[in-house]
C-alpha cells in the first residue's frame, strides 16, 4: 500500500475500516499501517496501534506472526501522569496488549491503543476469545466499552457501583491522600480509627439524583439463558433451570459462584461469578510506594507467596535496572521451586477432595508442605506471607543448617513423598473413571482462551516460561517440560505430579551449585524511584503465567501496577470446559484449574 492510499484509508472513517478489516483476512501490508508510533523504547519496546486497525493487526499477529497467546490486556489512565514520555498525547486512556508466541518463545509483542474518554474500542474477543474476562475487568475498573464483546459486564464489582475505581480521579471511601506515606501518621501523629468510619457514613457514593427504584444495570446480560437449546430430546421432557453453585460452597475453594443452567444433571451453560474478595489490589498498589507492594503481593496467591514476590521483584528490577547477586539468584530459584511443590501437592490433594475422596489424599499430599512451610518460616519469618524478596535480592541470608535440611528434603523426602502420592492415586480406578475424558478442551482452544500453566501442558503444549523466556537463572538448570496429550482432569492431576518431580530436579541442582556471597545487591530501599517507562515481567507461577505490568513516572509510587493473575484468566476456560458434563464434574473441573480466590478477585 502506498503512502497516499494509507492516508486515504486513515481519513476514510473508522467504521468502514473496521468492517473491511473484519471481513477480509488482512494482508501483511496492513501491519505497517496499523503501527502509528512507538512508546517507552528505553524500557520495553511498544508499538502504538491505530484504534480502528486493532482487530486487523491482532489477526495479522495471530495468523502471520504466530502470536497465539494473548497474555495480558490492561489499561492505563494517563490523566495524572507526571512524566515526559507522553508529552503531546491527548488521549486519556491507553490499552496495553501483551502477546506471546508459544511456538517461537521469546519476548512479547506489546501493543498500545490510545483511547479518548467516552470512546469505545473494538473488542479483541473475536480474534482471541481469551480477552473476555480481561476486557470485562478493564470495563469494570476503567469504564472503557468494548464493541463486539459478547458479554461485557462488571466482573469484580457489583453492577450498581458508582464510578470506575481505577481512574485516577476516582477516590475511595475515606480517601486520605493520593500516595503513601500519609502525613497524618508522621509527623502529625493523627489516625482515624476504623470504628469511626461507620459503614452508613460515607463509604458509598451515589450519582446525583440517583433513584434506586428506577435504576437498571447499565449493561443487561443474561448469560445462562443464552445457553443453546438442548438438541437431543430424551424420553423425559425436562426443563432447564438455573442453579447457583456457591458463593458459599465447599467445592469453590473460596467465595466464588458458578452460575449454571442445567438440564437434569447436565450443564448447558456456566458462567463464573467472582469479586467477592475484591479489594482493588491495584489501586492500593498505586497508593503504595514501590517497596510497600511487596507484602501485598503475598496476599494474591496466598498458597505460594514466594512466586508472587519473585514476579514483582523481577518486574521492578527490570524497570529500574537493578542487578541481583549470584547467591540471591539461587536462593530465589530454590524458593520458587519449593513453593511450586507446595502448590502442586496442595492442588493434587484438593482435586481428590473435589472428586469425593474427602481429606485422606489431601492430608497425605500436604504433609511435605508442612516441612517446606517450616523452612520458609525459618528464613523469612512467616509460613505463608513470606515477604522475602527485595529489589536486588532477598532480605536475609539463609540460616545455618538450612541448606542441609533442604538437601535432605530434595534428595530423600520429596522424591519419596511424590512416589508415594503416585502409588496412592495414579492407578486408582475411581480417579481414572472420574478423571479420564472429563473436562476436555483442545490445546488450540485453551491457548485461544489465554490459559497458561499446567493446564496447557496437560493438553500437550510444551510451553513453560522458564524455558521459553528464561528469567532468573533457569537457563542454567537441566530440567524437562512434562506434557500430556489428553487435556482432561486426570492429565491435569498427573501433570502436577510430574512438574513437582522436575522441581525436585531443579532444587537438587540449585543446592549443588549455590555459591556463598551477598544476598542483597544495591539498596533495594523504600525510596526507590525507577526511571520513567513501563515494564511487563511474567514468571511461571505454579498456577500459570503470573505477570506484573508496571508504569513509572519516576515518582516514589508506581503510576500503574497491574497483576496478570493466572487464576483469574484461566477461568476463561471454565465455562467451555464444563458444558456437556455433569454438575459433579464441574466441581472437579474447577478444582483442576487450581484457582485461589485471593488472586482471582485481587
Amino acid at each position, binding site marked *: 500500500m502506498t503512502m497516499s492510499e494509507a492516508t486515504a484509508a486513515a481519513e476514510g472513517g473508522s467504521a468502514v475500516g473496521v468492517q473491511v478489516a473484519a471481513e477480509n483476512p488482512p494482508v501483511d501490508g496492513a501491519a505497517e499501517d496499523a503501527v502509528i508510533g512507538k512508546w517507552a523504547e528505553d524500557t520495553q519496546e511498544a508499538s502504538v496501534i491505530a484504534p480502528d486497525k486493532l482487530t486487523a493487526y491482532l489477526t495479522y499477529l495471530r495468523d502471520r506472526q504466530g502470536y497465539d497467546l494473548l497474555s495480558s490486556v490492561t489499561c492505563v489512565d494517563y490523566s495524572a501522569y507526571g512524566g515526559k514520555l507522553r508529552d503531546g498525547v491527548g488521549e486519556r486512556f491507553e490499552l496495553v496488549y501483551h502477546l506471546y508466541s508459544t511456538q517461537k518463545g521469546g519476548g512479547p509483542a506489546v501493543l498500545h491503543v490510545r483511547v479518548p474518554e467516552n470512546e469505545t474500542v473494538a473488542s479483541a474477543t473475536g480474534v482471541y476469545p481469551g480477552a473476555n474476562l480481561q476486557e470485562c475487568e478493564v470495563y469494570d475498573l476503567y469504564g472503557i466499552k468494548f464493541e463486539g464483546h459478547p458479554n461485557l459486564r462488571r466482573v469484580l464489582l457489583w453492577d450498581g457501583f458508582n464510578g470506575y475505581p481505577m481512574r485516577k480521579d476516582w477516590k475511595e471511601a475515606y480517601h486520605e491522600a493520593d500516595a503513601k506515606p500519609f502525613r497524618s501518621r508522621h509527623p502529625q*501523629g493523627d*489516625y482515624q480509627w476504623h470504628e469511626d468510619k461507620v459503614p452508613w457514613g460515607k463509604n458509598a457514593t451515589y450519582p446525583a439524583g440517583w433513584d434506586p427504584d428506577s435504576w437498571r444495570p447499565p449493561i443487561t446480560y443474561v448469560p445462562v439463558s443464552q445457553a443453546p437449546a438442548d438438541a437431543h430430546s430424551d424420553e423425559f421432557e425436562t426443563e432447564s433451570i438455573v442453579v447457583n453453585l456457591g458463593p458459599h460452597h465447599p467445592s469453590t475453594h473460596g467465595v466464588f459462584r458458578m452460575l449454571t443452567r442445567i438440564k437434569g444433571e447436565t450443564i448447558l451453560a456456566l458462567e463464573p461469578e467472582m469479586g467477592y474478595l475484591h479489594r482493588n489490589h491495584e489501586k492500593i498498589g498505586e497508593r503504595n510506594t514501590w517497596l510497600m507492594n511487596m*507484602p501485598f503481593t503475598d496476599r494474591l496467591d496466598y498458597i505460594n507467596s514466594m512466586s508472587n514476590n519473585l514476579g514483582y521483584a523481577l518486574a521492578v528490577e527490570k524497570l529500574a535496572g537493578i542487578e541481583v547477586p549470584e547467591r540471591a539468584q539461587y536462593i530465589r530459584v530454590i524458593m520458587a521451586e519449593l513453593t511450586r511443590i507446595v502448590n502442586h501437592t496442595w492442588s493434587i490433594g484438593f482435586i481428590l477432595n473435589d472428586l469425593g475422596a474427602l481429606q485422606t489424599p489431601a492430608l497425605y499430599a500436604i504433609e511435605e508442605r508442612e516441612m517446606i512451610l*517450616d523452612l520458609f518460616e525459618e528464613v523469612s519469618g512467616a509460613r505463608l506471607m513470606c515477604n522475602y524478596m527485595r529489589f536486588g535480592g532477598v532480605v536475609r541470608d539463609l540460616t545455618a543448617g538450612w541448606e542441609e535440611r533442604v538437601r535432605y*528434603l530434595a534428595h530423600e523426602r520429596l522424591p519419596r513423598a511424590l512416589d508415594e502420592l503416585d502409588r496412592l492415586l495414579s492407578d486408582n*480406578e475411581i480417579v481414572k473413571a472420574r478423571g479420564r475424558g472429563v473436562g476436555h478442551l483442545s490445546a488450540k482452544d485453551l491457548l485461544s482462551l489465554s490459559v497458561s500453566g499446567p493446564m496447557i501442558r496437560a493438553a500437550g503444549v510444551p510451553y513453560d516460561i522458564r524455558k521459553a523466556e528464561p528469567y532468573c537463572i533457569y537457563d542454567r538448570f537441566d530440567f524437562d517440560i512434562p506434557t500430556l496429550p489428553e487435556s482432561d482432569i486426570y492429565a491435569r492431576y498427573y501433570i502436577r505430579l510430574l512438574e513437582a518431580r522436575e522441581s525436585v530436579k531443579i532444587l537438587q541442582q540449585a543446592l549443588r551449585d549455590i555459591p556463598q556471597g551477598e544476598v542483597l545487591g544495591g539498596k533495594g530501599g523504600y525510596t526507590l524511584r525507577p526511571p520513567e517507562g513501563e515494564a511487563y515481567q511474567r514468571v511461571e507461577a505454579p498456577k500459570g503465567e503470573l505477570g506484573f505490568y508496571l508504569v513509572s513516572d519516576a515518582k516514589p509510587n508506581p503510576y500503574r501496577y497491574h497483576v496478570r493473575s493466572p487464576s483469574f484468566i484461566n477461568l476463561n476456560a471454565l465455562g467451555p470446559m464444563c458444558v456437556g458434563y455433569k454438575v459433579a464434574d464441574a466441581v472437579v473441573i474447577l478444582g483442576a484449574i487450581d484457582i485461589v480466590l485471593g488472586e482471582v478477585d485481587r
Partner: protein
Amino acid sequence: MFGTGLLKGLGVTLKHFAETYIDDRKPAPSRYADSIQLEHGRRIIDQPITQEGLLTIQYPEEKRLLPERFRYIPMLLWDTEKGEDRCTACGICAKVCPPQCIWIVRDSDENGKPVTRPAEFFIDVAVCMSCSFCVEFCPFDAIKMNHDYELAVYDRYPQLVYDKEELTVPLEYYAAMWPEQFAAEQEVLRKAEEEERAKAEAKAKAAEAKAKAGDATKADKPKRTPEEIEAMKQKAAARSAAAKEKAAGDENDGEKAGDKSGDDADKKARLEELKRKAAERAQQRKQGEG
C-alpha cells in the same frame, strides 16, 4: 486387573497407619524426641526435618518451637542499661509501614521544644500485616518483632490499638527471643564504639601534638571583642524568650503520657483525647482546603 490400583493405594494408607500406630504405642513417641516438657502436660515441639509418621501438633496443649526470625507484631525496645527508649521518634517506621498502622507523637521538653523521644507510639495491630519493614528500616534497632501470637481479645478498640506501654519491652526480652540477631547487633555496636574510641584517641593525640607544635600560632587566633560577645548573648536571650512564648501558646497541645497503669479506661480517655485533636486538625485542614 480392576482393583489393583485401589489396593495399592490402600497399601499406602495401611503402611502409614501401621508406622504411626507403632510409633505412638511407644512410651516416648518419636515426635516428642526434642520437645520441651512444660507443666500440666503442655509441651513445645521441635520437629526435625526427618520426622516420620504423625506430624500433627495438638495445639494449644502442644506448640511449635518458633524459629528466631518468626515475626508477628512489632515491639519497642527499652534500653535497660541507659534507662531510655531506643526509639527517637524519627518516624521512618511510620513512613515505610505498608498499611500505615503506626503513628507517633513526638515528645517535647518543658520549653515545648521537640525532643528525640516518642510521647505516644501507637500500632493498630488489627491493621498490621506483620511485614517487618519497620524492623528492617529502623536505624536505631528500636523496633523488633515479637513472637507472642496469642493476642485474642474481646474488643478491637481499644485493646488492639497498642500504645507505647503495651509495645515496650526490655532489651533482655528481645535478647532472649532473638539471640543470634541480638549478638550480631551487639557485635556491630561494639565495633562502632571501638572505632569511635580509636578515633577519639587519635583526635586527642593529634590535638596534643598540635598544641605542642603550635603554641605560637594559638596567640594569632583572632579573639572576639567584648562588644561582639555581648551582642551574641542578647541574640540568644531574644531567641529563648521567643521560644518560651511559643511554648506557652502550644501548652494544651503537648500531650503527655500519663500513668503507666495500662488501664483500659485511662487508655481510652487518652485515645479519645488524641482522636478529638485529630478530628479538630482534620476539620481545620478541610476548612483550609474549602
